[in-house]
């Protein structure tokens, strides 16, 4: 199952660091191609989490005792590591959240408080529900309107329509960096530049990009960048909202509670500084530390080399899948990441996914939390194979053979 043909990439050694990759499912070696939903975890991340609970567990930020200070130091080291990894100017620009959904909801509420009736928010037709619904709620609450950048049949944003949607009323543009369903890599640099010309701020939903490419928020010049820990080889229940300091300072707190205050009196409460202003209550301390370990792990790898390998996997998968009769790719953008979404004439995605599962192959089927996108393509859902750098060419072969077998049964 191991392919070491990609130059310089020691897949065998990489795979050996992910315990779940050697699992068996239904008596077969697991072929894990559901990385768009969540990634598997390297041993260093698992160890960092259990080490925290065994040796460092205490509540952070307010304890004078040794263990609390240790825990605080580990948690803040993780923040600084993430700050450096994404190229943020200050560590307080990195807010810990519960994940991408938590990050976007924080922004939609807090930034939303600065909006007035008639202001406009722009999203795109390929957004995940978590980058649609929070903005719909903001629009409802504040009397703003939501505009949607359309896509073409290949699954690329219509940039001319975007230009036409931008106006002096646009306050925020929230687009995904990479579509979780189509794999399209959006021209975010251009999107950000165009929004800034109109004085609007930009949120990039990086849930599907940070694990696939180097990210530098200052080079991108995005105002906000959201991602989940669990999709980038870290623990579940932790994520990040990066925001430019001057914007975060301007925004009101979202949730009230401990840690986010400077002084509480019944007459008036004043709020803590960044990042604490946005981090009420005891956070997911172990998760934050585990996420720090995930980025430390990634620092030891060559992201550009991993990207090339993932591209090869996806390209090979697309070629092989298209040899089977009735297979149609959904998402054929020129710029694509290692997501291969497809439908097969005469076979329902759910049936395909169920049979592949029996063969030990984990793919995702359904609408991938992008129902408007399914409506656009007029399909009930797709089968999605999403690759990570630890996947192999042989696993692609297993997928294709498995699909062939499933289709013989179904059609």
């Amino acid at each position: 199952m191991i392919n070491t043909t990609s130059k310089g990439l020691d897949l065998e050694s990489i795979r050996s660091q992910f315990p779940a990759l050697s699992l068996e499912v239904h008596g077969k070696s697991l072929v894990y191609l559901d990385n768009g939903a969540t990634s598997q975890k390297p041993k260093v991340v698992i160890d960092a989490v259990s080490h925290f609970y065994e040796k460092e567990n205490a509540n952070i930020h307010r304890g004078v005792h040794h263990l609390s200070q240790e825990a605080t130091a580990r948690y803040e080291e993780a923040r600084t590591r993430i700050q450096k990894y994404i190229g943020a100017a200050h560590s307080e620009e990195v807010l810990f959240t519960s994940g991408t959904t938590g990050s976007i909801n924080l922004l939609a509420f807090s930034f939303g408080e600065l909006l007035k009736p008639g202001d406009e928010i722009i999203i795109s037709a390929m957004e995940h529900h978590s980058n649609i619904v929070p903005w719909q709620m903001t629009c409802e609450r504040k009397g703003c309107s939501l505009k949607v950048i359309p896509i073409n049949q290949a699954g690329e944003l219509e940039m001319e329509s975007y230009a036409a949607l931008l106006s002096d009323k646009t306050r925020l543009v929230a687009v995904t960096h990479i579509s979780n369903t189509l794999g399209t890599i959006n021209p975010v640099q251009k999107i950000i530049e165009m929004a800034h010309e109109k004085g609007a701020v930009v949120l990039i939903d990086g849930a599907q990009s940070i694990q696939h490419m180097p990210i530098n928020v200052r080079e991108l010049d995005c105002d906000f960048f959201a991602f989940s820990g669990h999709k980038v080889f870290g623990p579940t229940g932790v994520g990040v909202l990066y925001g430019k300091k001057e914007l975060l300072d301007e925004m009101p707190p979202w949730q009230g509670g401990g840690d986010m205050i400077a002084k509480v009196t019944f007459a008036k409460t004043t709020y803590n500084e960044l990042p604490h202003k946005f981090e009420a209550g005891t956070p997911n301390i172990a998760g934050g530390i585990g996420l720090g370990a995930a980025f430390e792990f990634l620092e030891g790898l060559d992201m550009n080399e991993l990207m090339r390998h993932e591209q090869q996997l996806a390209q090979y998968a697309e070629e092989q899948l298209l040899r089977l009769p009735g297979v149609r790719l959904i998402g054929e953008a020129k710029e694509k990441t290692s997501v291969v979404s497809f439908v097969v004439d005469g076979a329902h995605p759910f049936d395909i996914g169920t049979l592949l599962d029996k063969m030990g192959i984990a793919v995702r089927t359904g609408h991938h939390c992008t129902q408007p996108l399914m409506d656009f393509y007029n399909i009930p859902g797709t089968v999605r194979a999403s690759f990570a750098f630890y996947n192999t060419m042989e696993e692609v072969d297993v997928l294709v053979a498995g699909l062939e077998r499933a289709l013989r049964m179904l059609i």
Partner: protein
Amino acid sequence: MTLEEKQQSIIDEFAIFDDWMDKYEYIIDLGKELPLIEEDKKTSDRLIEGCQSRVWLDTEVKDGKMHFTADSDAIITKGIIGLLIRVMDQESPETIATADMHFIQEIGLQEHLSPTRANGLASMVKKMKMSALKAISE
């Protein structure tokens, strides 16, 4: 046949399959064979939206017996619907309301009736039972 005997006959049929492949081939064939619901009855009020597959259920009470027809856009779901209907159709509302559909577990398909599976089947069985309870109360 009583509801219990019908369940047992399905368990016996499935006993001959020694691997998942044969079992699913059989379910798929069931799904292909059964035109379970008329097209004009596939209306939104009969639709149960699962995250993965869609299920339509139509319920009638005739001469003190429950009559079910149902359908799905996914063939495996449809095959399992065929099995559920074989057991539950033409039974009294009292029998349906208290029925323990243990055969699904015994033939190793319980995952399909788990609420987490989101294929609409768990909601379908719930709706069948609710309609039986409604028939009892009327």
